[in-house]
């Protein structure tokens, strides 16, 4: 149970990586942008890959009537997400410490993981909803009003995960280092549960 608890602590502490590294990365490619243009999505706001990328993305998007990218204080998510992730990391560490010193049931580890998964799915859902709004809720006075083959307004929503052609750009949207750390951390908490569970069973046997 001792090593399982330590793994639980490490796993949940890995969430803290999100306070340093970005969660998601969206990269745009076009012939005129040989070195790409893009942004990193951090827990607490957006950051351009290069110094002025956000401004330049806004500059491009104004032709097709997209709103400006949100500043940190323009979306509740950027103040709530850090609290949720910070809280979950602390909660996981406390559960791990309790496992270490009070030998609570490894089922607590699983419970934490399930809660984390639910929150993760909610987060993804919210992120996707924002992207749909951002990519389709366009200025009616847009300079260029593009339509698809059926005459419907074109959606400029970047993919949630993967690569997509949008006009002259190819957009790549993938998790970034912070998300990988979180994913690996969550995997570790599962390992902690599995190891703890095996130990409990062997003790009972």
């Amino acid at each position, binding site marked *: 149970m001792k090593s399982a608890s330590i793994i639980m602590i490490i796993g949940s502490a890995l969430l803290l990586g999100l306070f340093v590294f970005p969660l998601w990365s969206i990269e745009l490619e076009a012939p005129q942008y040989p070195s790409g243009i893009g942004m990193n999505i951090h827990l607490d706001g957006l950051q351009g890959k290069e*110094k002025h990328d956000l*401004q*330049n993305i806004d*500059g491009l998007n104004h032709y097709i009537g997209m709103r400006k990218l949100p500043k940190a204080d323009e979306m509740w998510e950027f103040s709530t997400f850090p609290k949720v992730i910070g809280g979950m990391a602390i909660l996981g560490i406390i559960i791990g410490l309790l496992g270490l010193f009070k030998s609570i049931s490894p089922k607590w580890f699983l419970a934490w993981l399930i809660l984390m998964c639910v929150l993760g799915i909610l987060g993804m859902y919210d992120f996707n909803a924002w992207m749909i709004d951002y990519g389709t809720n366009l200025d009616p006075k847009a300079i260029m009003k593009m339509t698809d083959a059926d005459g419907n307004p074109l959606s400029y929503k970047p993919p949630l995960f993967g690569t997509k052609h949008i006009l002259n750009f190819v957009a790549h949207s993938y*998790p970034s280092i912070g998300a990988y750390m979180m*994913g*690996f951390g969550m*995997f570790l908490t599962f390992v902690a549960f599995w190891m703890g569970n095996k130990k409990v069973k062997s003790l009972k046997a």
Partner: protein
Amino acid sequence: MNTIGKYLLGVAALILMTNCGNNNSNSNSGAMSSSKAEKVYVAPGEHDEYYAFFSGGYSGNITVAGLPSGRMLKEIPVFSQFPTSGYGYSEETKPMLNTSFGFVPWGDAHHPDISQTNGELDGRWIFINENNTPRIARISLETFETEEIIELPNSAGNHASSFVTENTEYIVAGTRFAVPNPQRDMPISEMKGQFKGPLSFVSIADNGRMNLEFQLNMPGFNYDLAHPGRNKSHGWFFFTSYNTEEANTLMEVNASQNDKDYIAAVNWKKVVEYVKNGGGKKVAGTYAHNVYDEKTHTATSTMKEGVISINPVEVEGAVFYIPIPKSPHGCDVDPSGEYIIGSGKLSTDLSVYSFEKVLKAIENKDFVADAYGIPVLSYENTIAGVVKQPGLGPLHTEFDGKGNAYTTFFISSEVVKWKLGTWEILDRQPTFYSVGHLMIPGGNSRKPFGKYMVAMNKITKDRYLPTGPELEHSAQLYDISGDKMELLSDFPTHGEPHYAAGIRADLIKEKSKKYYELSENEHPYAAKSESEATVTRNGKEVHISMTMIRSHFSPDNIEGVKVGDKVYLHMTNLEQDFDVPHGFSIIGANTSEILVMPGQTKTIIWEPKREGVWPFYCTDFCSALHQEMQGYIRVSAANSNTPIKYTLDDE
């Protein structure tokens, strides 16, 4: 684990791929026999290996080319007005062309030289001289813009310039046309002994700022070219001179009578010491010093007065003459600093002097004569060797860093490769036609990049498709990596390149600026956002601070301007991305258009002469809606009371 595993796998694959890539490129460059076409071919999207900076001669500017392709990359305006960017027309850059003679819109640019550290090119700045109205310019190799121009008083024909000492301590400027110093009204025929040939020494500070430290007031011969000592001869400067006859008319005959002219050897460290100890005296001399500030995007011109003049005879053991056959032109020092090559342009031999022998001759006071009190060393005791009968009309020599020298011959139209020390001729290749200077990247420094050599020719004739009587000049690129020089290609060059400087591209390209930070723009009339755009009247002056961004001006409708006003259009480009300039021009402007880089502010004056509604527009095809990037200025009668009004989108 899955994601992390994939991630790790991805990293491993990447490393593998990069390794493969390296292997491939190694085996490619190892291929022995590539054709000439392959050697100059730079595939689409690939970069050249070297930058080459060609002086424009009478264009007054520098053109930048890539080597080995010979593709022209840019023209940098230096001493001449340049409507392409508005240099010399915009209010910010007009002061750059100010001189003690007033605004001089043109210059004759000759010898570019790149700054050095420990005798090696460091790629910070490039300097270039102006021959006609003596000046030296410093160009930043981050922005490729002229940042500073200093005028040289009391000089005339600033040809022996702008050569850099090996830690960029000093740049020199000679006087090719001896003149009265100080200038005065006197009969030309009384020139002998009366005229002078001052040599100016300009110091370079760590931030690049130039300062005219002193002038060595030499006898009135024509100081033609110069080279600083390198390595062991660091601390010395060598100047060739012609017309030691001091003739003042029909120079082609009368200045060619003496069997020998002189190389002046100057121990500049001694002279600097002498000045530091209070030597020399301040004499009259008015000169402009023009400095461009990257933060305000504005140049200021300061008129300065007085310069320290030094009588060379009074500085013990600092200035000597070395005899050299027949009207020398080029003066070059090999990378070790031991050999000084003088090219007597009417001689059939090349004279090579030994620095050590020069020092010994000075030590032994082995003087054969004196010229106006300056000791003349003996030719026999300073000569290291003679390259016998290499060609006709030797001009300039550069080095490959492998013990070989390459000399141009104007009359026989060829480059000759010879060996330092043995003076043996190794190879000769024709040039097309009548070569002046040649350039090996780094070829005048301690560490030449001995791979390519460019010959700059004075005569073009039939080398390209004919373009009427006036032709661009012609350059030839040679591969000098082997035993024999191999002619690779011909390419035209702009103006009259006298000399060029080359440097490995990687020493510059990474630090090349992409745009100016708008937040650092300190121009007093910058509008750093559309909300800061203003139109204000101050008597007959109207100042318009306008912004530019894809694809509109703000404001784009302006009223309240009157006939007879002086309208200052201060244009700020709000873009913060690489290669998104906007231009500005307005009908009837007596200036030029201006091309404004991202983050920059430039000002152009417009003096409306007629009532009406006059359009302005962006001159650079900046975006898909570039054609829409336009606006109007309403001009009312001089006595009208149309109020100042400016809008964007009627707001």
